[in-house]
């Protein structure tokens, strides 16, 4: 990314969208909308002083909503360009309220609340669509209860949990436990507030609250005493709930029994019939890393086939089984139900014994499908290219990078689901097709004349 950002021949237009494409191969006219960042890219040095002081917390979608970011943010730490952006939906100033702290904090003078979208018209020889994919929403599969069970997460959420810079700093804390810890924090704050109030009464009347309450009778008429008592009555359940949760939290450990469910949304006629290609390896990789973090971790990968198709992949799969406590179970999980302690319980068939089994895990990871990117249809209209039966851009086996319009090429998961090395190789091929479009060769000259 850094190399691309620094390359003299690459004009990187992040936070921008293509709106119109006219012309033909070799001489396209492309209109690009550069969305207002409310931050001057040339002035911003990416120092992050604005972010530190911004008072508005927003769910951080880079961390799949498991942490918060500020209304002025950079998508992730190493992002290129390193400039920040103001989220207009949440920024106080852009929502018409008072704030402007970031502007005061920015020593580079880069904040510009008046910034508007700009339109750029470009003359382009060839176009490559590399607009990627969307992660399938597993909430659509009712039997997996993704929206209800806290300890059922997607593979990408789990990726963030495993990351040292992620919401749990690389520890595999369970979402249900994180929620309890957050609740404890919240209750502790409330308790503190109530204790302060009670302390004021105690100071005024020179009596401990507990002593006062022993002698307090409900018929009391002194409003001050009634208030003291009611505060105490408010305090008691908070304290008890807090003690209860704290006790519960003492037993929390990181997730050690992991289950991975493959083909969530893929190879499923209800959603996407295709195989998403990379998820088997992704699950194996996540299971191996989880085991590296914590040697007591065991993982079960539930799948129809384990498609370790790629150089060194099958070897990696076998190694995961031998050295990283991974077992591979050939089964399509029928249902996930909630077990004790928020442990998800998988219901599946042991085909060999021909019985239905229930197995409890600490955390379940769903290997979600590689769905066609959002906005695929709109983009196909703008580019005037066709979409295939699976929802990806249409190509032919003879010319696997060429879309249905000359001079427009496709690579990566906009072409079909694929893994990193495939995408990289395809990207190089798309580049060579693009160069061929703009290169004049004797054969082309012959054709014209």
């Amino acid at each position, binding site marked *: 990314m*850094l190399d691309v950002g*620094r390359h003299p021949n690459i004009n990187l237009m992040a936070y921008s969208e293509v709106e119109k494409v006219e012309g033909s191969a070799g001489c396209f006219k492309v209109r690009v909308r550069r969305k207002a960042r409310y931050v001057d890219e*040339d*002035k911003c*040095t990416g*120092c*992050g*002083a604005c972010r*530190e002081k911004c008072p508005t917390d927003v769910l951080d979608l880079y961390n799949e909503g498991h942490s918060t970011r500020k209304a002025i943010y950079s998508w992730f730490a190493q992002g290129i360009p390193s400039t920040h952006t103001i989220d207009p939906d949440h920024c106080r100033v852009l929502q018409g309220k008072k704030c402007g702290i970031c502007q005061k904090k920015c*020593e*580079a003078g880069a904040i510009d609340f008046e910034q508007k979208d700009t339109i750029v018209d470009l003359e382009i020889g060839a176009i490559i669509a590399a607009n990627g994919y969307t992660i399938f929403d597993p909430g659509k599969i009712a039997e997996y209860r993704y929206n209800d069970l806290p300890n059922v997460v997607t593979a990408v959420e789990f990726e963030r949990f495993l990351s040292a810079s992620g919401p749990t700093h690389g520890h595999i804390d369970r979402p249900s436990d994180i929620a309890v810890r957050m609740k404890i924090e919240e209750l502790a704050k409330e308790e503190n507030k109530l204790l302060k109030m009670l302390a004021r009464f105690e100071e005024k009347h020179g009596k401990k609250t507990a002593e006062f309450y022993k002698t307090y009778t409900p018929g009391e008429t002194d409003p001050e005493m009634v208030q003291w008592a009611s505060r105490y009555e408010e305090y008691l359940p908070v304290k008890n709930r807090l003690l209860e949760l704290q006790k519960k939290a003492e037993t929390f450990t990181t997730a050690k029994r992991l289950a991975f469910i493959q083909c969530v949304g893929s190879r499923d006629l209800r959603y996407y*019939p*295709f*195989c998403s*290609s990379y998820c088997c390896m992704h699950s194996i990789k996540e299971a191996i890393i989880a085991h590296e973090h914590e040697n007591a971790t065991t993982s079960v990968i539930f799948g129809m*086939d*384990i*498609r*370790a*198709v*790629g*150089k*060194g*992949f*099958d*070897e990696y799969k*076998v190694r995961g089984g031998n050295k990283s406590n991974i077992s591979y179970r*050939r089964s399509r999980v029928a249902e996930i139900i909630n077990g004790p302690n928020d442990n998800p319980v998988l219901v599946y068939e042991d*085909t*060999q*014994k021909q019985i239905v089994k229930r197995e409890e895990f600490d955390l379940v990871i769903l290997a979600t499908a590689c769905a066609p990117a959002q906005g695929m249809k709109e983009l196909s209209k703008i580019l005037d290219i066709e979409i*295939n*039966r*699976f929802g*990806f851009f249409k190509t032919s*086996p*003879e010319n*696997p*990078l060429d879309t249905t319009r000359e001079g427009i090429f496709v690579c990566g998961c906009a072409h*079909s*689901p*694929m893994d*990193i*090395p*495939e995408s*990289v*190789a*395809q990207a*190089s*091929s798309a*580049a*060579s*097709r693009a*160069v*061929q479009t703009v*290169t*004049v*060769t*004797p*054969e082309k000259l012959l054709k014209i004349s």
Partner: protein
Amino acid sequence: MKKKSGENTEQLRVGVFICDCGSNIAGHLDCKSVTEYASTLPGVVYAKENLYTCSESGIGEIQNAIKENKLNRVVVASCSPRTHHPLFASSCAQAGMNPYLFEMVNIRDQCSWVHMGKRDIATAKAMDLVRMGVAKSTTLEPQSEIESSLVRKILVIGGGIAGLSAAEALAGMGLEVILVEKEEKFGGLMLDLNLLDSGASAEQQVFELAAKVMTTSGITALTASKVTQITGYIGNFQVAIATPGGKIDAKVGCIVVASGAIPLIQEGLFGHNGKNVITQMELEKRLKDGSFKAGRVVMIQCVGARNQTREYCSRICCATAVKNSMIIKRKYPLAGVHVLYRDMQMYGDVKEQMLWDARGMGIQFDVYDPKRPPVVSDGKVVFHHAVLGETKEFPCDLVVLSTPLVARPDAPEVAALMRIPSDKNGFFLEAHAKLRPLDFAADGIFVCGSARYPVTSIEARTQGMGVASRIGAILFKDKLVKSSIVAEIDAETCVGCMGCLNVCPYDAISFNRQTNVCEVKEILCKGCGNCASTCPSHSAILRGYKPEQLLAQIRAI
């Protein structure tokens, strides 16, 4: 290499710039004291604190200071050299200072960020780091970039679908190509295949491509020819090719290895006899020439693959089995076709759809247990069903074994020509499994198709076209320019032990038999320093990191 001129007469004038990085550095250590301290260091004539040294104003200050204070060394203490060294060094060059006299100190990632909340300690450490940087800078020597010419011609080894696609794309980009095929005809494995997944004739498709390549101007297409020798390096390889018409010598700038792979045929494996127990490749031939005849076919996957001796999955055989099953079933709807598999590797959209369609056509798929593989005997296949846990038996009159593609027996010869690495399965080893799948670690040499790892014809074609742009990025430039931070070997002190030769990962060192010393090919050297740290006589050094330069830094601690 250029020696520092006027070493004794030149007076050192070091300028030090301390970056606050907003609050990233200044928030955790006292940049003002560090700047004041820097100005007291020997050789330092100018020290300045910047809010952001990398901002336009910061760069401007460096450039002005170089001119006004006649600085001949610049030290910036800020963030990571990985991200900012090129910017600062080139800015110094713009102001007239040799960019190799620039030194960078990381007081953010390696100081303020790791000692947050310990202001005194962080400040003291920053001072130490700056002192070390300044000490090193005083020993730096000016260098000039290494330049080399480029021959805009490419040698492609192998005329299968990958090599043909590479040649087509390279010529389409306006580059000259020499395409060398060992066999009499272009086309490789595709010539032996029947139909492709799409239903098109494999031979026809590759034939059309070969015809196009042979008539494209700029492509010298050689069949029945063999590359016999390759010397030189990126931009300037000398190659010798033996052709039926005699030996050809040529100069090329880059090389593409597209030498392919071959299907495993092993007599006796699962009862293979070439008659009623055959491989998928043999089935392709029978389907193609019309000699296929069978009513009950059993196909067995992963024969000779994914086992102790050959651990890898050959990627393409499941799709081949499904494709051929469907061809049989389409032609002979009453034929029974059973596929015994371990995992159906029908990755992606089109292949998985084929699997759905094949099931719909009545082709049966059953999982076998690899611990108890199918046993082929006369007229039947017995296997243990891994899902049902039962032993099953299928009568059949033809058994088709899906064997893997394996490395060509002559692959080591090709590897030896360029000294390129192979993996334990004999396939060529790319520079980076994920991010550089088409490159070799050695500059100017690329790989595509099944020579790297088994691929489908579409993937081979994609990769062939892919190497073309990798090469274009090199050969479209006027010349090769690279950093001067490379190794050099002192011919006077080198004893010719060749220790460096063995640790050089880029093949940049060679042994000169006339002078009995080792020599560095600067254009190939990547400046890793392995040789410098290995050399027992301290003859190998890395420019910019010479012992005296590093010692100056260490002594300043």
